């Protein structure tokens, strides 16, 4: 199976068949991950560099693990983008690295578009591991995989994304990906967290959390960045929890069970209460395992055939 895309820069515009192929492959790799020996020789001899210009623990480890499970040689480069001098920031660092002949690069950067910029500088497969507030395609893919695992299909599924939509790459990639796969997406959060024009992307907008929960089969709860508080976007975390926090009392008012997702790391007691995050309806830890499988699938399909 060949994908129509050459790089994974985002999910906007990625055709349904490509997403289908990635998810199918991910389920196969998921089986590999259940085996006693969790390693396949698929990408033996391939060199992949993990280029992280922004702090990340989960995503970086997940990619690294995916690369190792596929027997690729993984090289890590971490630097905070602000510590790199202006001008030298991207192009020079990256071209230096690629003079050493890499097959693929997994990149995270704090600025939207920087991953696309990279794909123009280097002759290698480029995979976006999060570019600022733009996209985080592998996160959305692992969310979709987890939903498919739970519900069997994404077609017609009602999924609400709750929290800071404006500053979320997870939200944007999920909106694009879920809609391509036939799911209905709703967004919920305070108006200061809603970007201009978001309604034109085809998602339903709720400012009332109870209405959003009533709409949903599953919810994806976004992390509230504590620093948002100081910028005047929300008055306090306390008020945020009171209005938009996922608590047991709220869920108990519903006459149904909701599947709970969270891209992590969780602010327990802010956007979601501890007991809900750890409850039987939460698939948060499945998401983590599926993350490795989805990243194996993406690497296999984009780098393997090369």
């Amino acid at each position: 199976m060949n994908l129509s895309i050459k790089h994974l820069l985002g999910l906007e515009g990625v055709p349904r068949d490509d997403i289908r192929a990635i998810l199918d492959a991910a389920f196969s790799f998921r089986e590999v991950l259940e085996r006693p020996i969790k390693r396949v020789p698929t990408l033996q001899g391939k060199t992949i560099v993990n280029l992280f210009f922004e702090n990340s623990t989960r995503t970086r480890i997940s990619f690294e693990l995916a690369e190792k499970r596929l027997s690729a040689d993984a090289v890590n480069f971490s630097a905070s983008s602000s510590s790199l001098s202006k001008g030298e920031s991207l192009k020079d660092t990256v071209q230096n690295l690629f003079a050493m002949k890499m097959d693929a690069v997994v990149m995270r950067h704090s600025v939207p578009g920087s991953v696309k910029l990279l794909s123009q500088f280097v002759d290698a497969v480029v995979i976006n591991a999060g570019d600022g507030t733009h996209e985080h395609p592998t996160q959305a893919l692992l969310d979709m995989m987890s939903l498919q695992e739970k519900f069997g299909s994404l077609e017609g599924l009602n999924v609400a994304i709750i929290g800071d939509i404006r500053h979320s790459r997870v939200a944007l990639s999920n909106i694009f990906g879920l809609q391509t796969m036939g799911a209905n997406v709703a967004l919920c959060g305070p108006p200061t967290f809603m970007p201009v024009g978001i309604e034109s992307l085809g998602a339903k907008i709720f400012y009332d959390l109870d209405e959003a929960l009533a709409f949903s089969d599953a919810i994806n709860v976004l992390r509230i960045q504590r620093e948002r508080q100081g910028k005047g976007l929300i008055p306090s975390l306390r008020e945020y929890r009171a209005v938009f926090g996922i608590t047991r009392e709220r869920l108990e008012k519903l006459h149904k069970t909701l599947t709970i997702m969270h891209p992590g790391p969780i602010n327990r007691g802010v956007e979601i209460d501890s007991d809900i995050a750890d409850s039987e309806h939460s698939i948060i830890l499945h998401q983590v395992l599926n993350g490795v499988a989805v990243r194996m699938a993406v690497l296999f399909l984009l780098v393997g055939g090369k």
Partner: protein
Amino acid sequence: MQIKIIKEELLLRNVVVIDPFKEDTYETDILIENGKIKSIGQPVDPKTVKNSEDLKGLYVSPGFLDLHTHLREPGNEDEETIATGVRAALAGGFTKICCMPNTDPAIDTQEAVRFVYRQAENLLADVFPIAAVTKGRQGAELTEMVELAKAGAVAFSDDGAPLKNSQVMRYALEYSKLTGKPIINHAEDVDLKADGLMNEGLVSTQLGLPGNPALAEELMIYRDLQLAQFTGARLHVPHVSTAGSVELIRKAKAAGVKVTAEATPHHFSLTDEYMRTFDANGKVAPPLRTEADRQAVIAGLKDGVIDAIATDHAPHTIDTKETSLDLASYGMIGLETAFALAMMNLVHAGHLTLLQLIKLLTINPATILSLPLAGLEPGAEANLAIFDPNEWWVFSRKNIYSRSQNTPFIGAELTGRIKGVITKSHYVTL
């Protein structure tokens, strides 16, 4: 670019003259002698003249005037010098350019104003410095406007630094009345703009890029118009980019406010859709707006709400553009492409006549700053732009005379091309 001194006389045969003064278009021969037009409007026998060029099919107008150019000298000569900026101007048909004071140091003293004139002395375009409104462009203390005007400053602007303090803006407008020259304020509410890198709207949302709302421009223009009305002083609004701004200026003009306005070729040629490329060459201030805004700017140029086309030519080295969007500098070069973009998007698109366009590039900007513009009549200085309004060409790096190459139009197919200029007894051909 070829530059020839016109020794004694030169005859341009069979050109179509677009005369913005007389609002007339006609085919004629033009005889130039000792830097002046000797004959225009009647045929001249080429056998009686030593040098003649048959320019059948080409058009001639007064040389263009740009109200808004950044020349980077002194301070950032790696990006542009006054000399290289003048070459770029000539390539674009401009024989007069006004340069902004955001140099290092800023043009905020008489000596700095005189420096610009001195550097341009032997160059082939006239360079008119716009001086800062406040010392060091810091937005606090007024510059010595009267003395600066005496030294040759043609207007006052802190350029990229909006005058945020309303009282400073009020005093600047009031005091500028001693000079008769307008205040040009880069209209942007910097708090509302915050870290916005592109126009706020559907496209910024899809790209996850921080948005700079149209309101940031409109609120500042509204304040400036009110202050201009209150003080009775002259305000010039640079690079109008939103439909709301056009509307505000329209109403202010109707109410008798002494306001003039300009629009740039990039704002009437491109929209925020361009940012889908994530190309930092599209990062400008104010940002590229929506299609509705672009159309409103064109409508404003058509009905006279916007008085002039100005390039906002803003050279930057490539390494400040081949970087992530947050670090990339604002601005694009524009002198070389202005005429072709205007031909394509205004004239060939059916919005303006060629005569209307020529007015927006010549007498209108000259009137705003009371700058002299030679007429198309015997005895007048020969200062002309020569162009083919219909030539199709592909813009490439070799067409750039600026020291910087930051433009999104490399590789663009353009219609309408500058073929040469006559200036200061020189015949420049491209």
